[in-house]
């Protein structure tokens, strides 16, 4: 049995009403089909009732027709619904894929840029060194000091490249958090001790506000150390001489929160939603790769937590890491 063919199109207002009522956005012909799906079975049912009083066999026949119509329209509706569902999920998959591709594109551009600068210097130094060597051959009087300078520069640029590739490899490494009972106050203080010396060179104060009764947390200690160290390093790099950094931790029933606050220049509003992107940096080339915060973001998400930032330009920045105290199912 096939659905009845529509003969006329519905008035605009009815279509609108239908669209509002069902939330569907369908073209004219399909709307009519749907209307018929809905209206025909009850109409037939009405006829059945009427016919019952006139002739029973006719009523039975009509009832049969009504049932079959209803079954067909239900089947058509189900099919249509699952088609829409399929289309939607394939659209979603496409969207995710294209977002991924965009991210990869951005990442490759970042890598290319980061590696190109040292490569250019290496190329230039190599040419200069070979020029010096050929001069030396001609005059039999070598200036090896300059050649050695060139070689040293090349070496340092190669190290710079190596640093970038190591960071990238580290970034790409998948870390499955290993959960242990972690004394977060201790952990934060340990990392702060690493920063202390460099902070005092810069005449920067590094204050800890870590409550004595801070509960332990089931989390991954080395990953959390990485996050805390990255945030404190960023803060130290951001503040001027005489600046102040404050590290705070607190806990409620649900989560444990760590704040790293500084009174540096803060973050420009237009950069606020970029700072967690890989390779976003405002530091001069060679000083920042722009991977620190995106790594932190990855690590914190892996620990089922959130990282966020608040900043008023000119008044410093506060980074907040919130970690759940109770991990939901599936956790070892």
């Amino acid at each position, binding site marked *: 049995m096939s659905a009845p063919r529509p003969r006329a199109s519905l008035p605009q207002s009815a279509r609108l009403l239908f669209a509002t009522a069902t939330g569907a956005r369908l073209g004219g012909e399909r709307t009519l089909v749907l209307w018929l799906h809905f209206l025909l079975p009850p109409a037939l049912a009405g006829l059945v009732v009427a016919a019952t009083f006139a002739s029973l066999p006719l009523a039975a026949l009509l009832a049969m027709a009504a049932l079959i119509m209803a079954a067909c329209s239900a089947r058509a509706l189900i099919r249509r619904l699952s088609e829409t569902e399929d289309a939607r999920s394939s659209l979603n998959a496409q969207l995710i894929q294209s977002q991924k591709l965009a991210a990869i594109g951005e990442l490759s551009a970042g890598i290319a840029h980061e590696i190109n600068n040292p490569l250019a210097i290496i190329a230039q130094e190599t040419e200069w060194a070979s020029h010096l060597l050929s001069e030396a051959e001609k005059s039999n009087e070598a200036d090896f000091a300059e050649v050695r300078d060139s070689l040293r520069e090349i070496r340092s640029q190669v190290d710079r490249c190596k640093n970038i590739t*190591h960071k990238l490899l580290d970034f790409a490494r998948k870390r499955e958090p*290993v959960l*242990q009972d972690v004394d977060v106050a201790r952990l934060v203080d340990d990392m702060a*001790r*690493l920063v202390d010396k*460099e902070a005092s060179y810069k005449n920067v104060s590094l204050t800890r506000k870590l409550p004595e009764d801070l509960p332990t947390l089931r989390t991954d*200690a080395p990953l959390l150390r990485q996050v805390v160290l990255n945030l404190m390093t960023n803060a130290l790099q951001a503040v001027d001489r005489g600046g102040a950094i404050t590290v705070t931790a607190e806990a409620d029933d649900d989560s444990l929160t760590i704040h790293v606050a500084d009174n540096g220049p803060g973050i420009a509003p237009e950069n606020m939603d970029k700072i967690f992107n890989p390779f976003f940096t405002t530091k001069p080339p060679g000083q920042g790769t722009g991977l620190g915060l995106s790594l932190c973001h990855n690590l914190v998400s892996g620990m089922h937590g959130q990282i966020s930032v608040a900043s008023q330009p000119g008044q410093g920045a506060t980074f907040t890491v919130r970690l759940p105290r109770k991990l939901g199912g599936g956790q070892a």
Partner: protein
Amino acid sequence: MEIRILLVDDEADFVETMAKRFRIRKITVAPAYSGVEALKLMDEQDFDVVILDVRMPGMDGLEVLRQIRLKRPLTEVIMLTGHASLDAGMQGMNLGAYDYVLKPADFDELLDKVRRAAERKALNVRAQAKG
């Protein structure tokens, strides 16, 4: 739980005293006086925790750490450093060190860190056995 430690530092006195203190607590310690020696020992034996000096002549601690991560990814490494270089600390932690500790380290604190690092290794070994 029995813990096997490899202690790597070019200062022989430091290594010997430290090894003695661990042994009093019934923890076996193998000494190594350079990165190369440490890596050779690790080819032959499986250690739970490596305590690794950052600044050593020849192969420096960070390079040794890098090689250890490749050679024995499950072995945990605690970096020990006399001078607090923030950059080296970041590199060490980013390379997957378990912890980064300043010298002179309080022995009991270090012992506690060693135990936790060993626990982490055991957890990782178990997770890997499960697949």
